[in-house]
């Protein structure tokens, strides 16, 4: 395997792994704090059980998220030294603030996990909330750093030199808000559906129903609210990408030809040779509307992007379709759930509703990984959009393929162990 490809795959794998654990570690504390709040208020022991069960999950996912995050901070240099040499001083600001947020999260988690019956009960609860808030802040800051790669700012690029560096301007680059918003909501959607699905399964199996009903409801409400908000944030992102990275938008939509009244392409197989999409549903004008707010405005197609600056079209297109498809499915489930919750309370007891949530367990995370693929693959061939090519940033050390195999084995075994661990947590709850 060629070293460049190996380096990209290793990075993709590390991020793909980290993103799941980071999102769960970032969102679960909120669920946990809500359950904890109910326990403090109602004194119903079942809420305390839910809180404690979830806090064990938080501990496991925080730790795996923390180590995989530590690994990433080294991998940036191990795999992309020429990128970090230039980018580090420019986009380092969110990383240094993230260090603080993450540190506070670790401290607050120490208080929370070991503070039962030792701390004042409300102080104890607040430490749990701080775990959530500082986790979310870390996530937002890391995404701000990533968005800088999509929307580099805060420096002047002159004859290969990066001058007039302004780290604050770099942090508040044009993409930070839309990306951070989309990612944060995605974390709630994916974790919410995953957690709700697991508890729905437990209710169906008829074990410890009172416990799982409480847990299901908290997770499902978070998931449903977030799922309904996500299309709005997606719209902000689409308009933003259309302006800043027309090549990425064109690849997402397999939009080969620049045109007015551009159609929205749903599904299909992009044929890059003949520059068309087969078997797709096309909704006339909708892409123009979504990208610009006007059905008749022009949307830049791949024909305006030089070949060497085009991202891989098929991967970006499929990933985008998967993300949107999963997202829409979850919106539908969310709306149904709200209807049931407010209009048809009797359906709450039905098995089909629970089965639907069980089926939706992985949807959020599939959408999350797909969305991540869109933003990363869609940025190619650039590591810093329009400034530095990914191929020029890779480490000179040969043999990266071996390191890729090694990390793949490590991450796969970790994924297996974490799954076993979760399975055992759930089994333990049943007994």
């Amino acid at each position: 395997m060629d070293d460049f490809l190996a380096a990209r795959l290793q990075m993709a794998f590390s991020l793909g792994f980290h993103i799941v654990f980071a999102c769960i570690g970032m969102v679960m504390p909120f669920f946990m704090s809500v359950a904890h709040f109910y326990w403090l208020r109602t004194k119903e022991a079942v809420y305390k059980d839910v809180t404690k069960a979830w806090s064990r999950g938080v501990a496991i996912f925080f730790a795996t998220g923390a180590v995989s995050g530590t690994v990433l901070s080294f991998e940036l240099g191990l795999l992309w030294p020429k990128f970090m040499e230039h980018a580090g001083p420019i986009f380092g600001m969110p990383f240094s603030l993230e260090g603080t947020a993450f540190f506070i999260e670790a401290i607050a988690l120490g208080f929370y996990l070991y503070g039962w019956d030792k701390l004042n009960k409300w102080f104890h609860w607040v430490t749990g909330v701080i775990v959530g808030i500082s986790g979310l802040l870390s996530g937002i800051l890391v995404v701000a750093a990533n968005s800088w790669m999509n929307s580099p700012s805060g420096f002047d690029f002159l004859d290969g030199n990066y001058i007039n560096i302004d780290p604050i301007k770099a942090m508040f680059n044009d993409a930070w808000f839309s990306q951070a918003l989309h990612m944060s909501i995605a974390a709630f959607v994916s974790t919410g559906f995953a957690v709700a699905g697991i508890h729905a399964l437990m209710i169906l199996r008829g074990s410890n129903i009172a416990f799982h009903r409480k847990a299901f409801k908290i997770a499902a409400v978070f998931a449903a609210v977030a799922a309904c908000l996500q299309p709005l944030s997606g719209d902000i992102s689409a308009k933003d990408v259309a302006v800043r990275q027309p090549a990425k938008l064109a690849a997402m939509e397999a939009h080969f030809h620049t045109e007015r009244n551009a159609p929205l392409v749903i599904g299909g197989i992009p044929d890059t040779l003949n520059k068309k999409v087969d078997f797709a549903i096309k909704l006339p004008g909708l892409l123009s509307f979504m990208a610009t707010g006007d059905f008749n405005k022009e949307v830049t197609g791949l024909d305006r992007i030089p070949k060497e600056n085009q991202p891989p079209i098929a991967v970006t297109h499929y990933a985008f379709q998967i993300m949107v498809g999963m997202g829409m499915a979850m919106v539908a489930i969310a709306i149904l759930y709200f209807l049931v919750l407010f209009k048809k309370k009797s359906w709450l007891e039905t098995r089909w509703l629970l089965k639907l949530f069980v089926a939706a367990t992985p949807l959020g995370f599939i959408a999350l990984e797909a969305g991540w693929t869109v933003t990363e693959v869609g940025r190619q061939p650039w590591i810093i959009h329009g400034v530095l090519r990914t191929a020029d940033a890779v480490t000179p050390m040969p043999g990266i393929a071996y390191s890729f195999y090694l990390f793949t084995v490590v991450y796969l075994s970790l994924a297996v162990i974490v799954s076993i661990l979760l399975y055992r947590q759930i089994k333990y709850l049943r007994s």
Partner: protein
Amino acid sequence: MIYVVIVFLWTSILLYILLGGADFGAGIIELFTSKVNRPKTRKTMYNAIGPIWEANHMWLIIAIVILFVGFPKIYTTISIYLHIPLVCMLLGIIARGTAFVFRNYDAVKDDMQKVYTPIFIYSSLITPFFLGIIAASSVSGRIDLQSADFLSAYVYSWFNWFSISVGVFTVSICGFLATIFIIGQTEPGGDRQHFIRKAKRTIFVVMFSGALVFWAAYVDHVPLLYWIFGGLPGIIAIFSAIISLVIMFYMLNKDKPILLRLLAGFQVTMILFAATYIHFPAIVLLSNGENLSLLTHQGQARTISSLAYALLIGSIFILPALFYLIYIFQQKPNFKNNPD
């Protein structure tokens, strides 16, 4: 502002060695404990490090972020030429962090523990070992930016007696910190004697492996003696460390656990000081006699000043919270006036 950043960098490294080191040491002494005493050691250590162990490892992240934001050339040079030991260290970090949580949070305590525990113990050993190798390699003058072949660029840069001996020394320092720390977590008269004996042994191991470092430096033509004893500050640091070690030896049997911890922390601080001050501001010594210096390879002024402010503001939040965390959970093993 650059000096603010440098002070934070040095302090983060020191705190990682002290707190993270004691944490690694917990796994290391479990390895060197007879099977009979292992559960006891494990339980005592877990009660002590459980609440703060995640925080202990944040110092490494702070140090690495300071390096790549403020001193990108230094960060990338280390990343390229010490790739292999860095990867080994990372594997240790992954294995250890996850094994620690798994063995404490697995819902069912069964044979899976037999999987987690060895992973935890051995990764506690290899992580500081490679950390020591990386630290030593950055100053051993073997990093050759011109080298074309794989071995001399990516292997001999770290694979030498000096680096390996510093790796061993780092491991023994971690074990030493952990044993001194654990004394305060035990009841006088009870388990404490067991851990005091252990502490005495680790002190000898530290002295022996320290001597090994000097021998390896001599073999590898690293002028370590000159670095340490070439200036008055180094001589003073080493002698005060030795004096405090003698004091510590006498205090081991007295009931003064906090004093012991302070002395151990002081000794390690002095060792790090003596090892770094003579190179300052150089942090990486290259094979051609040149070096990468914290002053000449710093980022642009705006970067450094915003980094310094971020660190200062961050420490306002972090330090009080961290001290409070340590304070609260140090109350716990107070056997004399435990209200329960």
